[in-house]
């Protein structure tokens, strides 16, 4: 019996290797994704946001504003247009993201303690930029306001210590936990690569049953008396083993070569990947059990696999989705996987927290494999 299993497994490896497009996809897909995304997020932090300053005052006070802006790491002053119209044009053409307009008589108004207004314009078309730019500007604003305020108070006869205390008695310290440098590559690269990997695995899994009962050799298999359970069980073991095998170099490169963070133990991380792989394979197997042919199976598989990353709440938090939709997102194993990956990679959640994730993925696998068995049995009955 064991020998028969080995023969089936050997045959499956041979078949998977012979399927050239599948072979290319499985071997090259995830690795290509890793190098591509590491390239895209080569500079993983949004800083040096291109900034233009229209200095209509050209006084020492306005130069102080420019110095404050230059001191911010997030902003990079690249040009000094002469007019608002020029600045507007630069923002429209996305040559600068932030524009600052220092009005005429800025220094004079400050000296005379008159109200003056600095305009800051931010291109909001790309929110990734706009959010960071706004944070940087708000920080500069507070510092600048405090400096000018202290000077104003001193000029009004308030003691310098009191003037400083009025503005600077509270220090606000900010800490980004789990990803202190706000590194975008740490946040996104591994999930994106694993997303490509799960799509590749889904494509391969969709061939599990249709790859057998959609070819004429199925007649020989049936005539030979091999049980369907044994056949597909052995095939599934090979599939899952190969999926794990192709993710290992990705993990090695990601954590060792590119030094992406992994705060949890590697064993729990690998086990979590394995449990997800089984659940993903079970969905692919279910799809392949009711599909008419391999093309339909692949199309169904991709209809699920493609939007799963967006649904998983990785790019837009599940809590921000409509309430009735939030529970639906957890129907997909990808949601459990990508949420779990985030907890493991950044927060080192232990077994106690993750057990729920393992159980849910395990339950999904049981349900999908059972349904696949039912569909295959139905087909077998029809075939007889």
């Amino acid at each position, binding site marked *: 019996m064991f020998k028969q299993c080995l023969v089936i497994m050997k045959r499956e490896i041979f078949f998977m290797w012979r399927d050239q497009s599948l072979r290319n996809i499985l071997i090259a897909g995830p690795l290509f994704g890793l190098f591509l995304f590491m390239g895209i997020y080569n500079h993983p932090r949004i800083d040096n946001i291109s900034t233009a300053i229209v200095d209509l005052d050209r006084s020492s006070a306005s130069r102080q504003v420019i110095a404050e802006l230059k001191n911010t790491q997030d902003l990079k002053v690249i040009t000094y247009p002469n007019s608002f119209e020029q600045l507007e044009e630069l923002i429209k053409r996305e040559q600068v993201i932030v524009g600052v307009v220092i009005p005429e008589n800025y220094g004079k*108004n400050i000296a005379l303690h008159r109200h003056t207004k600095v305009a800051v314009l931010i291109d909001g078309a790309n*929110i990734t930029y706009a959010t960071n730019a706004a944070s940087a500007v708000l920080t500069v604003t*507070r510092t600048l306001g405090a400096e000018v305020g202290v000077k104003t108070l001193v000029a009004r006869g308030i003691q310098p210590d009191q003037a400083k205390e*009025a503005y600077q008695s509270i220090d606000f310290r900010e800490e980004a936990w789990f990803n202190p440098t706000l590194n975008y590559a740490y946040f996104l690269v591994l999930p994106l690569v694993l997303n490509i990997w799960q799509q590749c695995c889904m494509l391969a899994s969709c061939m599990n049953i249709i790859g057998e*009962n959609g070819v004429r050799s199925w007649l020989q298999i049936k005539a030979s008396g091999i049980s369907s359970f044994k056949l597909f069980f052995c095939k599934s073991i090979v599939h899952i083993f190969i999926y794990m095998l192709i993710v290992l170099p990705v993990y090695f490169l990601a954590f060792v070569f590119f030094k992406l963070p992994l705060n949890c133990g590697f064993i729990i991380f690998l086990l979590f990947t394995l449990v997800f792989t089984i659940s993903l394979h079970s969905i692919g197997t279910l799809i392949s059990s009711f599909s008419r042919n391999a093309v339909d199976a692949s199309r169904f598989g*991709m209809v699920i696999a493609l939007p799963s990353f967006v649904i998983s709440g990785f790019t837009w938090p599940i809590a*921000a989705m409509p309430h009735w*939709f939030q529970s639906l997102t957890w129907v997909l194993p990808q949601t459990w996987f990508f949420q779990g990956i985030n907890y493991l990679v950044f927060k080192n959640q232990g077994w106690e927290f993750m057990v729920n994730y393992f159980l849910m993925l395990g339950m999904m696998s049981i349900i999908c494999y059972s349904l696949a068995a039912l569909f295959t049995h139905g087909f077998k009955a029809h075939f007889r």
Partner: protein
Amino acid sequence: MKQILNIAYYEVVHIFKDRILFLIVFVVPLLYASLIGMIYASSILQHVPLGIVDLDNSVKSRTLASAFENTNNFKVIPEINTYAGLERGMKNGTVRAGVVIPADYSQKLSQHRLTQILTVYDGSNLIYGFNTRRYFQQVLNTFSADHTAAYLGGLGMSKQEITNVIDTVSVNMQIWFNPTYSYSTFIFPGLVLLILHQIGLLGIGLTITREKERNSWIQYLCAAVPQWKIFIGKALPYLIVNFFNYSLLLWVADRFVNVKVEGSPALILLLGLLFNLIITSLGFVVSLYSPNSLQVVRYLMLLSIPLFFISGYNWPGIQMPTLIYGMSRLFPYTWMAEGFRWVTVKDLELNYLNTTIIMLAIIAVVTSFFASSFSKRRNPLTEKGVTVNSDSTYPSKDLLH
């Protein structure tokens, strides 16, 4: 003309006969757009769960806490009120941000000594991280101004004097094009264009492979019908359907997802036509040179994620290495996504889009040329039992009947 219409009619019959293809062409774009629309329905990330650890528990510290409570951007979780609880909450996702007010906060303020407030946010999800950081800055700026006003009031200054001092320099910050930081305006159009790109390619990508699999492509190769007529005939139904989908999804975006769709309708139309022509001709070329439908489905679908992220739509192109960003400029999606955003979100005129339109037109001409000038020579059979041009079989239950 009649030949083209005959081929087009034959293709329409195929679309209606293949139920899955029918669903992909007519239903899936709307289904995906609705799904993504629902996901981004709230548009703005608000009510970030916040834990306030008030170790001082004084009137002054409660004033600070109320500054966070009185904004829609945060939702204070009362159960998180200790530092250990905050650490736990941040780890298990109960809260995504926290404020720690030290035990000697009010005492230090009374003694005119510097005190420090700690604000923390979850950097493991940067959608939360970036937005929370901005919300913190907004609250703290307001709180600082109030605190300064209260301090100056204590020094005996009148309200008018305080206002004059505090407002000596004010900053008027304007967010252009997307003032509410709407994520649906930011991301939804890009995803819709990607759906149209991928579904458009997948639809027409099967048109020739299907003929090869049924051994009927040989009839096209042998018939006295020029290549361009075959291309136009086969592509016509997809051109019409894809353009219908483009218009439908734009309408859905504008009407139901509250995405900002402004700008010149003529430019939106022109961009849509060029993009549609590129997708259709590119899909036809892919189908021409693919051995079977299975390979088309497998390869095309895997393109989605890299295409989107390399395009610079989400992560700014200038932050990428020049080689990668330069490479992305070869793909029509990059140009279309950028041009579409410039028209619909920024409401820019034609003179800003010259390069985009010229590039899309060049790509359209090149892909159309390849689609309408393929070789009609039949390749010889190979040892693998090839029917036309390549191996055209894949597992199917139909084989057993």
